[in-house]
């Protein structure tokens, strides 16, 4: 199939960028979106032109590295998928497809479609961990966890930190990401000792990074490739307010 790409091209951070058009010719419909970009880039390189810069790693929806706003939707059309799980059959012959990077003050563009998501790492560093002396792994059943809690913790832990929630939010808020990280630890026994300090430290860091404030519109949930629920945001608010009141 043949499509036209309109791609945000920006040579470096803090430099002006603009949209450029690229033809994508003879793309197999079974190619993934990133494979299509590989084909286009090979062509560009063979012509001695600068390829389109984009991020990817696992290409199977588990690492959270890829991420492009495709026709106005983070990770493109389709539900519960990452950009690497999007296939060209989702488009029609002759389509013009617009590619933009995640847009947020906290995620500066490094080049073209690649943004710097180190802000997420710093939020995790602020408290998204448990402090334990590692030794042998303990017996799986030594620490009982209620089924509902373990399910909810697992659902929250499915977050791969791709940043689509920030990209989707009209306020560029990181609340869904932070809420997933806070929730999965707050729901499990291992997370209890640092429960109160963790949530306060992570929110402090989140604010410092320049993410916006949540206005509860759930656009993040709609675009999350792991379908993380905004119920986690309610839990985050609760955890934060209780931590502030009780400590």
């Amino acid at each position, binding site marked *: 199939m043949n499509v036209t790409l309109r791609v945000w091209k920006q040579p470096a951070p803090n430099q002006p960028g603009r949209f450029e058009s690229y033809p994508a010719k003879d793309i197999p419909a079974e190619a993934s979106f990133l494979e299509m970009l590989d084909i286009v880039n090979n062509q560009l390189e063979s012509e001695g032109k600068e390829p389109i810069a984009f991020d990817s790693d696992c290409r199977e929806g588990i690492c959270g590295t890829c991420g492009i706003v495709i026709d106005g939707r983070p990770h493109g059309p389709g539900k519960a998928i990452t950009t690497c799980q999007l296939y060209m059959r989702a488009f029609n012959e002759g389509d013009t497809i617009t590619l933009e990077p995640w847009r947020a003050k906290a995620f500066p563009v490094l080049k073209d479609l690649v943004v710097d998501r180190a802000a997420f790492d710093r939020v995790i560093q602020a408290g998204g961990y448990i402090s334990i002396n590692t030794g042998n792994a303990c017996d799986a059943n030594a620490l009982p966890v209620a089924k509902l809690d373990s399910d909810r913790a697992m659902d929250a832990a499915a977050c791969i930190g791709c940043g689509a929630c920030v990209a989707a939010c009209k306020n560029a808020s990181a609340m869904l990401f932070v809420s997933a990280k806070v929730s999965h630890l707050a729901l499990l026994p291992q997370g209890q000792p640092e429960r109160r300090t963790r949530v306060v430290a992570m929110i402090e860091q989140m604010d410092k990074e320049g993410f*916006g404030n949540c206005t509860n519109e759930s656009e993040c949930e709609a675009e999350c490739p792991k379908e993380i629920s905004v119920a986690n945001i*309610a839990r985050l608010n609760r955890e*934060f307010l209780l931590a502030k009141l009780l400590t």
Partner: protein
Amino acid sequence: MTPSSILKKTVMALTGLALVGFLIAHLSGNFLLFKGDKAFNAYAEFLEHQGGLLIAAEVGLLAVFLLHIYSAIRVTLENKAARPVPYETKQSGGTSTFGSRTMMISGAIILLFVILHVKMFKFTDHEHVDGELWGLVMQAFANPVIALAYMAAMVVLGLHLSHGFSSAFQTLGLTKPGWAKCYKKAGLVVGWLIAFGFFTMPLYGLVVKPKPGAKEHAPAKTIKHDENDDDASVFRPVLTEKGTVSWS
């Protein structure tokens, strides 16, 4: 130290819910408009007689209102700053609503409305109006421009509350995972119901154009018809030279 994002949102949610609480009280009192001038004016007089208590409540309400507006403006400005370069093609994933996307605009219209509303009904002398405060209100609503503007403002209020009411509970962490499907719908219904309650009043004034005293003479079911009653037709609005309406 700047307050955290969640704290700012908590202030907005608490003040928003306090304002909703006020609206519900205001609405239930205002339903006396339908009972006629005597009942409504007695209620207004009762409130005025509370003296210091009423003033304290008004000052508190003003403080809550200003706090809500202050945090709304702050949060909105921060949210704009969080995305300095806009998208060219961004589309909604389908979960936000027109109301949720326009909270600052609907809020600003409500602010404008509240200023005009307070000036019109609280700081306008009603002592010499036939039907007193009730008469002042009904006289205003008999004017189609005023009545329609009020109705439009109530639609804007409905929009604001259609998102704001449920949003406040989420902000305060008072929603549960199991409520995901229903709490937004419940908030939408409650928000629009409150706005509809107020909407009926200018509508009543405009369509029915009730006259002072008419209701009080209305026969109770068990009492025989009182002939004075039919003379309601003697009440006719007359435009005075000053441009106000008087009842002859």
